[in-house]
């Protein structure tokens, strides 16, 4: 550090000390939550690889090579090739994008829709019955069946897959938000806010929503994990993403006929899918512990 004038020199030690204290606290916090850190590292790794797919992919993920069908892993094809001779490494890298986009979008959409409907059910007496009966109806249908049915009536595309996976997830969030809202509306600070003349939308935004962020974030991560699995499953069943979008589910579906001769065609997409879902679940679990209001005081 170069000293330019006396004034900053006296301020600098205090700043570095504060910085040191803060980073020490951060290190301590990180050591306390190993699953969160592990999950986050894994997730960042997968996300980084998918984002970098255009640069690290060795081949065009759709390029056919009839001469190198079902080739085992080698220097030219680190993960081998599939039944059409497509390079699996490149496909797996590109395939992560589909999973991550689906996971993230579904989590955001399902949570937002769930929050809106759940708050309506929890705070507007007249909406409660209608919303909750609708949600009960949705919950009565198995998620996968509902998603398949929705896919069956629409044309396969990224958007329709996302919608088809989001719809069955919404009732979960609605129930969570409604139950949280019912307990929060009885909180005295909500009553106090009303006694101060606060309008309902402001109460919801300022006093109710911030107090349900933690369970919502945790729920959203689990929805993201479920969404990725469901996307893979739909693609595996052939009612998911269109073939021109590489997806781990499609790859596993393509490879399953050749498991006996080319195990790698299923192994690598499967490994990546498992690792991604695991990482998201770890993050969710870790967040639940880390954001627990009883433990987060020193945050």
């Amino acid at each position, binding site marked *: 550090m170069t000293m330019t004038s006396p004034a900053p020199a006296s301020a600098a030690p205090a700043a570095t000390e504060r910085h040191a204290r803060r980073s020490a606290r951060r290190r301590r916090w990180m050591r306390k939550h190993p699953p969160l850190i592990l999950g986050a590292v894994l997730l960042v790794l997968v996300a980084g690889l998918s984002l970098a797919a255009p640069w690290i992919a060795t081949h065009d993920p759709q390029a056919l090579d009839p001469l190198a069908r079902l080739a085992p892993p080698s220097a030219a094809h680190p993960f081998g090739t599939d039944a059409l001779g497509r390079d699996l490494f490149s496909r797996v890298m590109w395939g992560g994008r589909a999973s991550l986009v689906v996971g993230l979008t579904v989590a955001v959409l399902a949570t937002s829709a769930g929050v809106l409907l759940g708050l309506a059910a929890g705070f507007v007496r007249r909406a409660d019955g209608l919303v909750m009966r609708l949600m009960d109806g949705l919950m009565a249908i198995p998620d996968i069946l509902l998603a398949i049915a929705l896919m069956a009536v629409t044309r396969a595309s990224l958007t329709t897959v996302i919608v088809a996976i989001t719809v069955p997830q919404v009732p979960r969030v609605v129930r969570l938000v409604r139950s949280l809202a019912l307990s929060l509306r009885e*909180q*005295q*600070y909500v*009553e*106090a*806010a*009303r*006694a*101060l*003349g*606060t*309008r309902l939308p*402001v109460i919801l935004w*300022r*006093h109710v929503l*911030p*107090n349900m*962020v933690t369970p919502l974030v945790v729920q959203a991560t689990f929805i993201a994990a479920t969404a990725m699995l469901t996307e893979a499953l739909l693609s595996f069943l052939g009612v998911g993403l269109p073939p021109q979008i590489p997806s781990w589910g499609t790859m596993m579906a393509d490879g399953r006929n050749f498991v006996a001769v080319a195990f790698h065609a299923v192994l690598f997409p499967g490994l990546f899918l498992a690792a991604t879902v695991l990482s998201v679940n770890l993050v969710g679990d870790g967040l639940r512990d880390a954001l627990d*209001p009883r433990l987060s*005081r020193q945050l």
Partner: protein
Amino acid sequence: MTVPSPQADQAGRPPLLDIRDLRTHFDTPDGTVRSVDGVSYRLEARETLGIVGESGCGKSVTALSVLRLLPTPPARFAGGEIRFQGTDLLGLSEREMRRIRGNRISMIFQEPMTSLNPVLTVGRQIAEAVTLHQKIGRRQAWQRAVEMLRLVQIADPERRAGEYPHQMSGGMRQRVMIALALACHPDLLIADEPTTALDVTIQAQILELLRDLQAKLGMGIVMITHDLGVVAECCDRVVVMYAGRKVEEASVADLFERPLHPYTRALMASMPSLQGRGGRLAEIPGMVPAPQELGTGCAFAPRCPLATERCRRETPDFTGAATGHGVACFEAAPARHQPVVLHRHAGARP
């Protein structure tokens, strides 16, 4: 202490708060619950009115009725009016009512632990209360919050404003609640058991703070409590409620000197005193009847040592309001100033 006579409108101004024959009922599947059944009281500016009674006697419902904070349904205003500076609050729209809440009538609650939003700093909460009713900038609102914290005697208000409720003690949080309630300088403050959840030394501090602030800001205070000690300490006049009705009203001095209603006397007898020596405190046998179980006659009659046949048959009217010391009891002839014989614990119970 002076007793403002009920007709004390020298300037011809309407009283600050004038509740007339208020009836707040709740429609439940088991029938109508008459939580407040014909209560009247009035309050002038700069005056403190105590509302005393056991749990479930309708004190809080009356207060919540004033702010119209009860969910309707099940609550229903079956009659009466609540005039605030001359305007009938029951006739206002929800929108007009919002403009009064927090701005001209404020309320502080019993539990300082749960009355503040845990995820917002206290300064932010106060600043937001200010911006609800006044068009001022963020920075000014924040300054106002700091100023309010200083007003409620919180040390180092600049730093404290940036803290979260969980970083404060119960007494401090109640101070913050008071700052929050008074941020817009309301004309009327309703304090619903403001000291019940605090320990005794803090109670005294909070009551003194309220008295100070009243002198500074000149608001009227309705002090809801079940603690006659609080009443003695800070009220000018007292309304004693029982089972949704007003049973006695007097100035504090009058009430403590010559309580008329057997219920009031029983309440006083159940207070520990410094003169008395040890032993078990007197208790009032039985419980406040559930409002849906009220039959005819005086609601206190089943627990009253002076009850007669007439008490069980007819409901006594509230009499003597003009003298400044009114009571609703057949047996409370002022001349008959005898100690109420209470059922000492060991003795026979009815």
